[in-house]
């Protein structure tokens, strides 16, 4: 802790407790507040959030992973159950058919009738299934899925950096969501009622609740108590705690740490899945978007419980679930509620978890990690750009993209290329923040979106001429980025990922879904200079060359995007090569050591957030100008996750990685090619993205570009004639002897480079010339050393190596 002025422990628990008690008192005192807070719907939502949160706590205690896909598991389980009940089908993830490329190629050759055998899409158990068999089957599926998550994803990652674990869980989240969208589309699916309870109201005095709702609430409470007993009172729980300390701890108690982790994964997917199924049944419906977003309140609750306490987690989860209906009520009825354009600001209920997260982290976080707290682990290597890459990279990219883009590509491919270019910009912003300084932000498209709406407003309503709104938009993004950076000063790793995710989800609703800002159904128009409008179908004459072929998108848009990409690419490459870049990488690998080296860690972090948000903001502005119309869907939190995924896939730590990532993003060139040539439907973007992300995190954390780089280096090493032998490990003493001249015995390596000769030297020859005369004339080291040693070094001196390496 650098600042000794942290609030005292008493204040840290006292003030939040007072605030909560005061809020509860107000709610209880007012009849209609109470009725809306303690409502059946609120309780049901709270129960689901609590179950997800309990699952998150269980996996965290078992394997140290904060599973951001926890809520998606609930949604997935509900779909499995619903499909089993409705049709008796157990649907399978549509993994890509390995034979599909053959089909594509044959089609390309002109034979459209050719078709390879289809991949199975589901296992049928006959017709519609009863409640119990469907429930059991769905839970078995959940258990298996938990096991697969452990064995295939998180066990291989158990020693990996936090970033890799966050990335993998984001990958799982994207994958689950994409599978469901692919199978059932985004529309709501009807789920049948539970057989043993119904919608009869039960009067509990203080409030009324339906039988079903009461049932799920009781179920969650029972589960919470059971988990508390299991983890706190049983040998299993003791072993899990021991294993969390170190892997051998569990072995002593007769458990295998690996089996324990597997058990916690299964336990958490089953608990989460169970409640997902029941709450979907109570609501009679499930859709692919609502439940996965509940990860934000769930993780918030888990955070309140310190990722260990089941009691506090459950309480906080109910609170966060129940406040939603109260806030909706307040918005509709209270005059003091914040309004935008005459309507209550939407999404205030989503600000509540954000505020709680920031408060908890601010109170518990530390500006520098203490000793013993593990660092983030090794992140992908971040190479500094080589001079030739700097000289030819930009122009090369420009030529490669420009000539075909402007003159030859079909409109669809041109569109894909433009999307790739804007994607590269967003990926670059992630490279700076995550690749260089190791901070995880899952809100990059929120920054982009804030900028895009600023551009729309300024260009259309205030008549700002191009390109001024771009700067203004980027400035707005920078302000947002710096705001997000403030909590980031005291938290790191997965906590930061959680905070930024909560921010992104809140911005989605509060800003992007705010009809006062988003221009309603039609979106917000951007007044674009004619030359840049991608809808423009005119052709343009330049120096006698005709540009454009009368189709959308306008090739000049592409030129504009390209200019921005090249400029920002150089900016990021330069940043890496500069002192600031070195300071960022220093912070990334070790915050404490960076501070000890005089780096102002907080300032550099804020700077990194600012630069990153600036780049994302420019990206958002470019997207705004390119489309001429800003709609929220391009900037919602799942897009942030998607870009994060592809930036990581491409290679999170270099400009090349961002370019690779841009090629892969949804709607980008890569998918346009897959789509045009192989007929791969759009829904596969996220599916492959999620899957690719998990695979990359597990097998190849360096990303595509990083892998290519290491392979290339290895190849070059193989091709090159063997280099002169490396200096021996005791270079020091060897070079000492080589170069030791009586005059300057202590400067070894001036003349003798270690590679000059493997002349074997006797190390003891080195110290013979006496040390340069020292004013304090200490006794000669050797003599006094051994003399003193014989007295004192009895225990400590005798084993210097052991003592030194103890920590």
């Amino acid at each position: 802790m650098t600042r000794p002025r942290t609030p005292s422990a008493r204040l840290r628990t006292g003030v939040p407790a007072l605030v909560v008690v005061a809020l509860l008192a107000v709610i209880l005192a007012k009849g209609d507040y109470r009725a809306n807070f303690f409502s059946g719907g609120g309780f049901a939502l709270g129960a689901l959030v609590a179950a997800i949160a309990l699952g998150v706590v269980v996996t965290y205690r078992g394997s140290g992973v904060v599973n951001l896909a926890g809520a998606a598991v609930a949604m997935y389980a509900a779909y499995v159950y619903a499909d089993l009940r409705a049709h008796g089908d157990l649907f399978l993830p549509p993994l890509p058919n390995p034979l599909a490329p053959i089909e594509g190629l044959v089609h390309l050759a002109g034979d459209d009738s050719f078709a390879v055998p289809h991949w199975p899409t589901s296992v049928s158990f006959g017709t519609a299934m009863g409640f119990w068999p469907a429930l059991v089957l769905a839970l078995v599926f959940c258990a298996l899925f938990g096991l697969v998550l452990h064995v295939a994803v998180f066990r291989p990652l158990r020693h990996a950096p936090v970033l890799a674990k966050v990335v993998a869980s984001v990958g799982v989240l994207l994958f689950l969501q994409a599978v469901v969208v692919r199978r059932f589309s985004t529309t709501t699916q009807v789920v049948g009622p539970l057989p043993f309870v119904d919608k009869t109201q039960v009067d509990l005095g203080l409030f009324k609740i339906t039988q079903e709702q009461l049932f799920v609430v009781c179920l969650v409470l029972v589960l919470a108590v059971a988990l508390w007993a299991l983890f706190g009172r049983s040998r299993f729980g003791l072993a899990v705690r021991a294993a969390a300390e170190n892997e051998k701890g569990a072995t002593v108690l007769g458990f295998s740490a690996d089996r324990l982790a597997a058990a916690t994964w299964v336990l958490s997917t089953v608990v989460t899945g169970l409640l997902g199924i029941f709450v979907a049944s109570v609501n009679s419906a499930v859709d692919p978007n609502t439940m996965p977003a509940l990860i934000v309140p769930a993780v918030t609750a888990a955070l309140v419980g310190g990722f260990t306490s089941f009691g506090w987690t459950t309480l906080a989860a109910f609170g966060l679930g129940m406040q939603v209906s109260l806030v909706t009520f307040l918005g509709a009825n209270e005059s003091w509620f914040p309004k935008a354009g005459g309507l209550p600001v939407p999404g205030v209920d989503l600000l509540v978890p954000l505020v709680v997260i920031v408060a908890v982290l601010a109170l518990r976080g530390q500006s520098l990690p203490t000793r013993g707290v593990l660092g983030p682990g090794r992140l992908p290597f971040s190479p500094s750009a080589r001079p030739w890459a700097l000289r030819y990279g930009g122009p090369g990219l420009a030529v490669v993209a420009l000539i075909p883009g402007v003159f030859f590509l079909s409109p669809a491919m041109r569109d894909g290329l433009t999307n790739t270019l804007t994607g590269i910009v967003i990926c670059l912003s992630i490279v700076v923040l995550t690749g260089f300084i190791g901070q995880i932000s899952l809100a990059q498209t929120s920054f982009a979106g804030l900028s895009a709406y600023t551009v729309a407003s300024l260009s259309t309503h205030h008549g700002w001429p191009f390109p001024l709104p771009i700067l203004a938009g980027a400035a707005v993004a920078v302000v947002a980025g710096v705001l997000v950076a403030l909590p980031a000063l005291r938290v790191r790793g997965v906590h930061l990922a959680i905070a930024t995710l909560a921010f992104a989800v809140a911005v989605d609703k509060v800003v992007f879904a705010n009809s006062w800002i988003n221009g309603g159904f039609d979106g917000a128009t951007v007044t674009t200079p004619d030359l840049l409008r991608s809808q423009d179908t005119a052709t343009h004459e330049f120096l006698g060359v005709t540009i454009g072929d009368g189709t959308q998108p306008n090739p000049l848009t592409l030129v504009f995007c390209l200019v921005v990409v090249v400029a920002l690419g150089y900016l990021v490459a330069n940043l890496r090569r500069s002192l600031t870049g070195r300071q960022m990488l220093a912070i990334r690998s070790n915050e404490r050591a960076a501070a000890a080296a005089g780096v102002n860690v907080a300032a550099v972090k804020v700077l990194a957030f600012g630069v990153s948000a600036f780049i994302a903001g420019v990206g958002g502005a470019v997207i705004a100008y390119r489309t001429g119309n800003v709609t929220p869907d391009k900037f919602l939190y799942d897009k942030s996750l998607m870009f994060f995924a592809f930036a990581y896939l491409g290679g999170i730590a270099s400009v090349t990685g961002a370019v690779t990532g841009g090629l892969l993003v949804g709607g980008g060139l890569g998918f346009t090619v897959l789509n045009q040539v192989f007929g791969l439907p759009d829904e596969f973007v996220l599916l492959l993205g999620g899957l690719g992300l998990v695979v990359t995190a597990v097998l190849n954390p360096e990303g595509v570009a990083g892998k290519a780089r290491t392979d290339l280096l290895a190849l070059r090493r193989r091709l090159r004639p063997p280099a002169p032998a490396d200096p021996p490990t005791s270079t020091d003493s060897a070079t000492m002897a080589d170069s030791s001249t009586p005059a300057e015995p202590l400067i070894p390596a001036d003349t003798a480079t270690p590679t000059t000769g493997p002349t074997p030297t006797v190390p003891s020859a080195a110290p013979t010339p006496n040390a340069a005369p020292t004013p304090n004339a200490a006794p000669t080291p050797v003599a006094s050393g051994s003399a003193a040693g014989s007295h004192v070094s009895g225990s400590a001196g005798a084993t210097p190596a052991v003592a030194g390496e103890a920590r």
Partner: protein
Amino acid sequence: MTELLRTEAMSVVYGGLHAVNGLDLRVDEGRLVGLIGPNGAGKTSFIDGISGFTRTQGAIHFRGRRVDREPAHRRARLGLGRTWQSLELFEDLTVRENLQVGAERQTVGGFLLDLVRPGRQRDQTDVDWALDVLGIAHLADRLPTEISHGQRKLVGAGRTLAARPALICMDEPAAGLDTTESEQFGRRLRRIVDAGVSILLVDHDMGLVMGVCDEVYVIEFGTRIAHGTPAQVVADEKVRAAYLGTKAAS
């Protein structure tokens, strides 16, 4: 002699444990001061405390000003450098870049200029001096992962040294070095002191500490049990008891 660092009744408390308990310690300019004690005596905690990495009670004076409320990076910039018991190098940067992070100070103008001309020539004299004094100039372009443990220790010291601190606190820099290497290291320490950098040396290598230090503090359970020249300390009854005591216990 001019006073450089002085602590007054400095304590470091973890929970209920007094890792450092009311320690008075003073380092004068141009001195090489040893700080020894059995495992867990509180040596690392003391360094963490004076360099700003853990909360402290009591006063810390450095170069005539009170620094115990300053954040870590500002103490480093004032010239209070430290190394780490567990190395903590920047693994993604080359040896030279590691030292540059320590040596260079960023300004707003410098940052903006960096975005346009990142490769411009910067003053490297301090970095080169540190590389040279420690004899690691030939490793400048290697990554920390590519060099031996002993060399990594030198890089850790070099990173602090490159900032040209007034005082450098070294936490077990010689651990893991063999006798020859440690003797050679001792001579390097003297050269560093001769160049005007004072040293607070924490180490378990009694040969090294008693051989190079001008004076030595001995602590146990966070309190000082002896202070004096190496010869005085070695002869001290309490010191012998402390070391023999830990021997019997372990």
